[in-house]
């Protein structure tokens, strides 16, 4: 188990290294000069050249990569071209929005999906199961940004229960902050919940046809006891896989959703930084997201082991 984890960790690090090369190389060819963008239409050429010098854009490519990657190893993501502040600070500010949002969405989707999956699996084939699965089928088909628009239309524009967008900041207190995150979290969570509910249901049904379920039934356990005590934990394995994948989807989803709701999170930052050609921020952010996904996969591997003793110990 330990050597397996070390191997996964090593693979993760290599992936991260290759990713850093790819990200750097890719962003180097992005057209557009950040210095010119900052100074705008009226700027003179020598002012732009002076700014490029200040920003270190005139150094050779390899040198810039080495300095960038080297600094990143010690946790220094560099300084934003446009904001002039350390990228780390920018990320820290934005993550305070994105992380709660992603976590809220993840928890929300689990809180909806797993009970629904259990409900449906327990009533497999009955009308209630069919109805629930029909709804989830619909949920899977709904693009989250459209769902977000509908939520805005209903809850913000028509009913005016919550703000349609924007983020008052955590300094405004948890109440308004959470209020601003409710709709985005819902928009992210429900389509994901639909997928998760379907996976949970089919994993449970798959598990329910296993021999050991019959063993448990032969012990005298009732249907529901078998479902909760035996099927659920075994069904968690495919559910975990999907949860891991979903986290990556949620991160990507926040890019769109933060744009819909205008939340100052990582998703907006990356979009904004790309349009502003603040490449150092983009590079740092992409690496952060890639590292997060690798880390999440590693955590999922660990959770597999927690759920499944076969992965914990050799035979």
């Amino acid at each position, binding site marked *: 188990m330990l050597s397996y984890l070390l191997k996964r960790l090593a*693979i993760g690090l*290599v*992936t*991260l290294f*290759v*990713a850093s090369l*790819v990200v750097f190389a*890719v*962003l180097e*060819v*992005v*057209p557009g000069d950040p210095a010119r963008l900052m100074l705008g239409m009226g700027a003179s050429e020598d002012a732009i050249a002076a700014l490029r010098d200040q920003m270190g854009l005139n150094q050779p490519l390899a040198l810039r990569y080495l300095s960038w990657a080297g600094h990143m190893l010690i946790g220094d993501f560099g300084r934003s071209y446009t904001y002039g502040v350390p990228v780390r600070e920018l990320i820290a500010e934005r993550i305070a929005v994105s992380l709660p949002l992603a976590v809220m969405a993840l928890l929300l989707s689990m809180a909806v999906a797993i009970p629904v999956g259990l409900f449906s699996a327990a009533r497999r084939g009955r009308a209630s199961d069919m109805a629930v699965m029909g709804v989830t*089928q*619909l949920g*899977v*088909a*709904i*693009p989250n*940004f*459209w769902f977000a*628009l*509908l939520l*805005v*239309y209903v809850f913000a*524009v028509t009913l005016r229960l919550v703000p349609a967008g924007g983020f008052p900041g955590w300094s405004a207190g948890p109440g308004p902050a959470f209020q601003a995150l409710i709709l985005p979290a819902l928009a992210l969570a429900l389509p994901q919940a639909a997928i998760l509910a379907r996976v949970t249901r089919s994993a449970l049904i798959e598990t329910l046809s296993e021999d050991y379920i019959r063993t448990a039934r032969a012990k005298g356990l009732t249907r529901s006891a078998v479902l909760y005590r035996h099927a659920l934990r075994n069904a968690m394995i495919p559910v975990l896989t999907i949860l891991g994948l979903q986290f*990556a*989807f949620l*991160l*990507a*989803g926040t*890019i*769109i959703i933060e*744009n*819909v709701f205008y939340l100052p999170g990582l998703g907006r930052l*990356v*979009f904004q930084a*790309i349009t502003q050609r603040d490449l150092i921020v*983009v590079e740092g952010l*992409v690496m952060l*997201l*890639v590292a997060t*996904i*690798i880390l999440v996969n590693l955590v999922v591997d660990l959770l597999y082991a927690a759920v499944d003793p076969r992965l914990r110990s050799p035979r």
Partner: protein
Amino acid sequence: MTIGQALRNPSFAAGLAITLAVAATALLSFAWTPYDASAMDIAAKLQAPSAVHWLGTDHFGRDILSMIMVGSRNSIAVALVAVGIGAGLGIPLGLAAAARGGWLDETLMRLNDLVFAFPALLSAIMITAIFGPGVFNAIVAIGIFNIPVFARVARGAALSLLRREFILAARAAGKSRSRIAVEHVLPNIANLLIVQATIQFSLGILAEAGLSYLGLGSQPPMPSWGRMLFEAQTMIGFAPHMALFPGLAIVVTVLGLNLLGDGLRDVLDPRLQEQR
């Protein structure tokens, strides 16, 4: 298994019907739309649905129904080509990885990990940042992320199949690995791949809509569902029909494909087939 038997599967029948209807709409749009989808009539802008414009008009006075019809071409074409790229490159890679094993397998799977480690949307944004937004780049961006999906499915299915005795029998009959892959493995995993293709197709439609929504997909005057939603967003307070119908078009199309995929999974399941 005949089509008639397959159609008794409600999910397959409904999915097929919706998918065919969407495809037919796309084809019809080449020959006929209620209005010219790109014809502006600014005096007639933002009209609610009526007998004249069934789904209303947009902020330029264009007919939304016509735009949705023409937009379906765009969605279908992008998703189709992206699936083609993914399947065309991913399946051979997956089969090769499974059949050859060793360093090839290891390398391909690590590359897969690499692609999976990038949130697809983020990479799409970067790709379009370099090459500029447009249909072609949207296809490439979505297609690249289909490759590892197909490679993984093909590899997994092939690996479990390669353990079957008839593969050993074929080897005892002197067939080479690559020949076995083509003659025995591919036909046996085709079902799985077809089902995966419908799933990726529907994901492709969603991805295209997402990219277009962010302005990274096809460009005007070609209508696209995602961009229609983007444009509707600021007008949702007084012209909700602009947001409603393109969204419904996406939902219905994706729903149809998902139902078709689910139905195909059951219809093509060899376990169910062999009982017949």
